[in-house]
């Protein structure tokens, strides 16, 4: 098992998700399948092949420090589930006590 039930519980806590015991069991098993599948990549990673974080062999892609038009509040908020005072309204932020 490459991911433990405790690790899933920890991730759930970080994500402010209240998972029930049976959900932890179910998700731990499902995540394990995913991680095991992805981990197969390690089988082909051999010495002499540098780790890579990007598919394109590029570096230093910059833009000039120039202002371009913004969306404006109306357009930016048009698709927001809720807005108030020209701001995005978000549900109560979970804080651990």
């Amino acid at each position, binding site marked *: 098992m490459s991911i433990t039930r405790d690790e899933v519980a920890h991730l759930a806590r970080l994500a402010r998700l209240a998972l029930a015991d049976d959900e932890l069991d179910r998700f731990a098993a499902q995540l394990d399948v995913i991680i095991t599948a992805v981990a197969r990549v390690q089988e082909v990673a051999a010495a002499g092949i540098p780790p890579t974080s990007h598919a394109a062999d590029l*570096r230093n*892609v910059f*833009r*000039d*420090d120039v202002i*371009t038009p913004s969306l404006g509040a109306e357009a930016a908020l048009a698709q927001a589930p809720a807005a108030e005072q020209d701001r*995005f309204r*978000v549900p109560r932020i979970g804080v*651990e006590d």
Partner: protein
Amino acid sequence: MTDSTTTTAGLPVSFDDAVARYEPVIGLETHVELGTASKMFCGCPTVFGAEPNSGVCPVCLGLPGSLPVINRAAIEYAIRIGLALNCSIASWCRFARKNYFYPDMPKNFQISQYDEPLCSDGYLDVEVEGQQVRIGIERVHLEEDTGKSLHIGGTAGRIHGADYSLVDYNRAGIPLVEVVTKPIAGTGALAPAVARAYVTELRDLMRALDVSDVRMEQGSLRCDVNTSIAPAGSDRWGTRTETKNVNSLRSVERAVRSEIERQAAVLDAGGRVIQETRHFHEDTGSTTSGRSKEEAQDYRYFPEPDLVPLAPAPQWVEEIRAGLPELPAARRARLQADWDFTDQDMSALRNAGALDLVEETVAAGASPDQARNWWLTELSRRANESGVELSALPVTPGQVARICALVAAGELNNKLARQVLDGVLAGEGSPDEVVAARGLSVVTDSGVLAAAVDEAIAANPEIADKIRGGKAAAAGALVGAVMKATRGQADAASVRDLILQRLGQA
């Protein structure tokens, strides 16, 4: 969250007592918003105080399909900062995703740097009570600022107990540089002053480099202070806390001080300090417990797949180095030598925020001593009275220099000069306009003065006799009478000379 068995506050411990028995170690993480025109990864503006969400676009809102592109100026500014802090500049580094669940970033992550900072391993020398302290710089890295949340309902403005929150993403994506010090140990009772001196020096440095407006009150320079204490002589460091919300230079000093006192009380009571984030309260000067700190692994950093690596060419770095301006420490040394000021004079000027003002006043023709005296006494007093910074007083260095010149030329005495300043501050115009409008020039008409002197002598025959008898010191009373008669508009030294002359003593 507070566990009463481990964080019992204990009996209050005074600061002197705490640092006599415990050795503090501090560390500072300072965030500086860069003064680029556009954001870190998109072309939205970086204006402070704009209408909410007016400066946002698909990139800084994290909308699907948008891609970030690095602002070259932000990289250049960060390298400038790194070089000024004597850091090595990485020849190759990457940005990383810092993942967390908080709506101040719409992407659910912040683009930052993790194990590959752009600049590392430098130092900054600061001066504290005549001692030079070298502060090690661990790293300088680039990231993007977050949005601003407004918490609605519950206790005013607090996230705890709020019903919901409103987020403005104008600030999200503004380039932010984080400067992290190495642990600063061995400063003992000076630790709070060292923390303040460091942030002050860093602020002055950023200003000199012209990379940020570094206004703590507007949040363009923000400081988190790490503090731990261990019993004196111990070879291990204590558990550190991270104090946030430290928004002024004075607060930096107070936060370290109060955290040292609090931790000493906890340890004295047999408790242990827990690693946590604490919030500094400006009103009480103390800290309260915040959330327990996430571990770095909780942020699940990984290389940012939407950005390619950064590899500043050595030639570019050298060009930036060659273009560095005179740095604050060198400038202060130069000015001190030019002005022939003492160390005390210089620290008084710095603490009052008067260095630039004095420099400009001298440049406008005043002598260094005159300029210093005006800004540190008369003008400081008025700034205090109106509760504003010296630089916010409605008088220019050029106007102060003009008042100094009028005094030096004998056209104003000190009392009149202060009245001229009153007029300038009241918006009555330039010093010369105030002199003309209020009729404030010194009485130089010899006939008028002579008449006033004769009148004073006639009215005070006994004093006049004493002076005739050789007691020149008695002239003061007559000078006072003449000044009164001329409503303060005479030059006291000339009046004295005239009195002595009339009574055969000159």
